[in-house]
């Protein structure tokens, strides 16, 4: 299929048109808009870096950024520990293997918005009643403080995504040559050494994939945030994605929200590229 031929371009046309109209054009427009005072209605005037200067001084934005970073770091750690732990569990020779995989993965199919509502019930009602029953005050009033809101988000996300990360680790675990594990057993390596010196290096590509996934979803999370805490109390659990949506569509500050979105894009891109580069360097050749 030569690229001068008609069929080459006919085959490519639908996706190219959609990518251009849905991603490329809005992407370029958005970048330009972020230097104006566009409010969604009038065309707007060029204001240079004004939006970017004010967002650095914007306490709400900085708070959202800091909250998101903390959240992403904690969830990346937890999800990789849980995901790998569950994967190691269900790849052992236990009878409930397949059933457990199905159960652990299930939350991923249901969608963040609905899961957030279910957990809102659990934190607000179930935790409260258990707290009263046990006389444990720390279980009461969840989601009504910044701290507990943060951990509520972490628990929800860990419960939801651990099964997804588990599937990724299982996929890579199955490609680890079993004779390597056997050989190290014969050589007298104990479980810890086997894990550290044999399994761990061989699983490095799985780390790359799952860290990329967890880190980027950690930064981009929106639905769960909306349905679990709705950003409250007093916007203190509002993450970046929600801050951008609200600035744009509740406050109608389109250009300002777009400047936030550009900063958001740069953070996500830099982290993703740096992380993949770093992890790739650590992977061993098979």
């Amino acid at each position: 299929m030569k690229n001068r031929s008609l069929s080459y371009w006919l085959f490519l046309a639908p996706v190219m048109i959609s990518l251009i109209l849905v991603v490329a054009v809005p992407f370029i427009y958005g970048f330009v808009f972020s230097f104006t005072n566009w409010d969604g209605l009038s065309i707007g005037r060029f204001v240079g870096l004004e939006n970017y200067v004010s967002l650095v001084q914007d306490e709400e934005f900085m708070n959202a950024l800091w909250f998101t970073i903390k959240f992403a770091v904690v969830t990346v750690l937890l999800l990789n520990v849980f995901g790998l732990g569950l994967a190691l569990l269900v790849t052992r020779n236990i009878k409930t293997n397949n059933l457990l995989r199905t159960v652990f993965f299930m939350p991923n199919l249901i969608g963040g918005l609905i899961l957030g509502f279910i957990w809102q019930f659990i934190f607000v009602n179930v935790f409260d009643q258990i707290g009263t029953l046990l006389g444990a005050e720390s279980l009461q009033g969840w989601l009504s403080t910044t701290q507990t809101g943060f951990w509520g988000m972490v628990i929800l996300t860990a419960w939801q995504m651990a099964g997804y990360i588990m599937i990724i680790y299982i996929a890579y675990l199955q490609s680890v040559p079993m004779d390597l594990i056997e050989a190290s057993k014969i050589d007298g390596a104990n479980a810890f050494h086997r894990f550290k010196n044999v399994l761990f290096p061989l699983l490095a590509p799985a780390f790359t994939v799952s860290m990329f996934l967890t880190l980027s979803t950690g930064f981009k999370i929106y639905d769960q945030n909306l349905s679990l805490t709705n950003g409250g109390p007093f916007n203190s659990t509002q993450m970046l994605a929600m801050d951008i949506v609200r600035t744009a569509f509740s406050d109608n500050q389109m250009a300002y929200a777009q400047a936030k979105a550009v900063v958001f894009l740069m953070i996500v891109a830099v982290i993703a590229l740096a992380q993949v580069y770093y992890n790739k360097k650590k992977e061993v050749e098979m």
Partner: protein
Amino acid sequence: MRGNREKKNLRWLEVLGIVLGLLWLAPFYLMLVNAFKSKSEIFQGVLGLPASFRFENFIQAFDDLDFLQSLFNSIMITGLSILIIILFSSMAAYALSRNKSKLSTVILFTFVGAMLIPFQAVMIPLVSIFGQVNMLNAGGLIFMYLGFGCSLAIFLYHGALNSIPQALDEAAIIDGANRFQLFWLVIFPLLKPITITVGILNVIWIWNDYLLPSLILSEETATIPLKMYFFFGEYTKQWPLALAGLTIAIIPVIIFYFFAQKQIIKGVSEGAVK
């Protein structure tokens, strides 16, 4: 000795697995049992089974959710989006894999690179542009899903197509097939495993998507997540009704999962490895 110890370890792992499994299911249990209770019964205790099963909660939630309508909307939007993602992405990946040139490499990398752009970065101009041409409707939404979904699909199809020998194309051309016939009759059927993967990954994403529909769809064309958001807002603190609504909303997914769990788990792991 050694065998015995391993057996014992395994038994502990079985127990650990069951405990974790139950823990994972607990939120669904709590949702379901409390959906049958009255408001005061929830207040008295959330953990136990209800004294009597109040199916009224479900009937009212079903009505207020306008469930059949939102189910229909979700199925149409998800189904059509996935159909065009599969059709157009496989064709594009075929063109790119059968023409190894600098241009093809640049096009492929552009598509893959687009995956790095978070939705929020294009969201505002996207809604504004589509609003100006009156495309903020289900049709526009499906077209947007093609734009956002084609990158990963092309990437996956491209990998699979590279392992299908070119000799097959040549044989079909000699037999007198044109490019379209060749692709749809010979190549596309061979791509079935990756088509399933692409389909599954996109069902999970599009079916559950909330943000994009919330910016585009009206209440009549709302998908299940969007409708659920409106519904939940109406019944704040009316927990039995809200929980019954949540239960109804996840039933289609549970049915789908029950029938396609093998493909789903396989699809997800293939998407992650490639």
